[in-house]
């Protein structure tokens, strides 16, 4: 997808050696880093040498990525900065960027290198280095080397869009007379599933993010929607109404066999998403009279309701550390984060606006959500640890239903 040049042997060897020397520490669930807003680690790039437009792009994007990560801030001076990046990012003839850097902090160091062609790849070098720093220094997955899929609402119609984590490389790849719905990445980010009315009925299609033909996954008569891929990539949770009522199913992507999970004659299901271990699915059901968040075991099919407050609770997203984010109608629409085991819940969206459609970032800290601005929506990154929301940098438009991919290599 990224059309990368092969890394040089030297860079690859350096990278491999560094990876072997400093194993990535495990991500601890429910770790809360105190004082994120004031406790960011200063990073100095003062001794990083660059050349050419690509070198400048690399450094600018790296600074923005480190800032957006929530863990770091760019130091104004290298003195007193706990983390220092040295080395060089050099444009070599044509449009090649060769990067060889050393990242040093109190407690470790690693070397990193990459050689790629083109501006887009220079940006992705920065994304990958930022994420490597987050992994090595903070023991967390990064959010820079990721992509975002969402819906562009255009009058009565709409389109599916994809962009990089910082809003760059915006692509619109499916414009339809009735707006398509709910794009959802596969775990490796290589493909998305979404709901399209292009055949008259809502059907689930899968398509590679690099383009090409799309293929129907579920096109049973009636409703086909909510396609969400399991962590192992083998199953797609979906809502089908074929039995005569909307119900939650799991579809095997290879055999196409559909297994029914819910039996709610007086209720409709919607918006399935998988637990990180792939054993459970969170979804919306209105079998109790109003739409609420439920969790079901995909094997024994036992289900229970987790949302307690709010007249409506919809659009769940199950985060990598086990917490579930969802949209809760409590006066306005708020984004709530809940630990399904303890029931502990908190509101993470600012007051005064309607916030919908949360999607966890792979760091288990940030959440992408849509904010209503009058008749349209914009996309924002919320921080569960208290940093100010950041608007995703996109052209003017009506952007909805974001899905944040996992880390992309």
């Amino acid at each position: 997808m990224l059309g990368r040049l092969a890394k040089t042997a030297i860079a690859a060897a350096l990278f491999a050696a560094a990876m072997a020397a400093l194993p990535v520490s495990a991500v601890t669930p429910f770790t809360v880093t105190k004082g994120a807003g004031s406790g960011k680690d200063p990073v100095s790039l003062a001794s990083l040498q660059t050349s050419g437009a690509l070198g400048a792009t690399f450094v600018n994007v790296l600074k923005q990525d480190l800032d957006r990560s929530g863990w770091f801030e760019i130091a104004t001076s290298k003195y007193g900065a706990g983390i220092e990046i040295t080395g060089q990012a050099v444009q070599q003839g044509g449009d090649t960027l060769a990067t060889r850097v050393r990242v040093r902090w109190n407690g470790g160091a690693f070397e990193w290198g990459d050689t790629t062609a083109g501006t887009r790849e220079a940006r992705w070098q920065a994304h990958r280095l930022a994420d490597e720093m987050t992994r090595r220094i903070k023991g967390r997955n990064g959010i820079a080397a990721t992509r975002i899929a969402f819906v562009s609402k255009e009058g009565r119609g709409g389109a599916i869009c994809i962009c990089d984590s910082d809003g760059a490389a915006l692509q619109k790849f499916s414009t339809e007379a009735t707006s398509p719905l709910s794009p959802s990445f596969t775990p490796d980010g290589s493909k998305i599933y979404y709901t399209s009315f292009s055949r008259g009925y809502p059907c689930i299609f899968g398509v590679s993010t690099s383009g090409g033909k799309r293929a129907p996954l579920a096109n049973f008569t009636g409703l086909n929607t909510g396609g969400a891929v399991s962590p192992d990539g083998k199953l797609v949770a979906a809502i089908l109404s074929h039995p005569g009522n909307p119900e939650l199913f799991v579809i095997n992507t290879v055999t196409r066999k559909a297994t029914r999970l819910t039996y709610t004659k007086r209720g409709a299901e919607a918006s399935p998403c998988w637990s990180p271990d792939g054993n459970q699915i969170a979804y919306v059901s209105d079998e109790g009279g109003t739409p609420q968040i439920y969790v079901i075991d995909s094997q024994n099919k036992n289900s229970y309701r987790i949302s307690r407050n709010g007249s409506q609770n919809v659009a769940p997203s199950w985060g990598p550390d086990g917490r579930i984010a969802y949209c809760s109608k409590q006066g306005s629409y708020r984004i709530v984060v809940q630990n399904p085991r303890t029931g502990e819940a908190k509101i993470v969206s600012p007051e005064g606006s309607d916030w919908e459609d949360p999607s966890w970032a792979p760091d288990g800290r940030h959440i992408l959500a849509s904010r209503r601005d009058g008749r349209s929506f914009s996309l924002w990154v919320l921080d569960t640890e208290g940093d100010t929301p950041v608007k995703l940098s996109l052209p003017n438009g009506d952007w909805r239903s974001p899905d944040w991919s996992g880390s992309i290599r």
Partner: protein
Amino acid sequence: MNTTTLKIAVTLVAVATLATTGCRSRKGNNAAGNGYDDGDMTFQTLTDDETGLALTGEPFDLNRTPATDVAVQPVYFGYDSFQLPAEEVAKIQQAADILRQYPSYVLIIEGHCDERGSNEYNLSLGEQRALAVRNYIGGLGIDPQRIQSRSFGEERPAVMGSGEEAWRLNRRGEFAFYR
């Protein structure tokens, strides 16, 4: 939830073959040019012995033409509800009468929602509304296999704009007859 019912086999019964008809343009949506070639898209069919109300067969509009000689006004619903209001039932009886009068006709009920709340939940709610109408007609003695549902959620409002009146007119079930 009754766990004994969970063992009911949900079987892929038939894959309707459209290969002979090839890739046809339908409903004008693809005319918007989404850039995709779906190839021969065959509709899958599931059945479920439990309800007897399973949707089966191909979507009616694949091989039929709209019956423009008959029409029924839309059924309107309450906020976040798929209950049929008592004052709307006469319209549904009218639709049942048409199906009785024209035994070769079939019906697609299109379920719609107002713009508030989750698009995804609204898609399910719209389907629930369409199926509530279908079930009612089935209860009047019409073969449910002559009736299919189709939800557009909040994606195809009858009235653009916000406010109680627009929302009321958008929470609806529309009747599309085919011959």
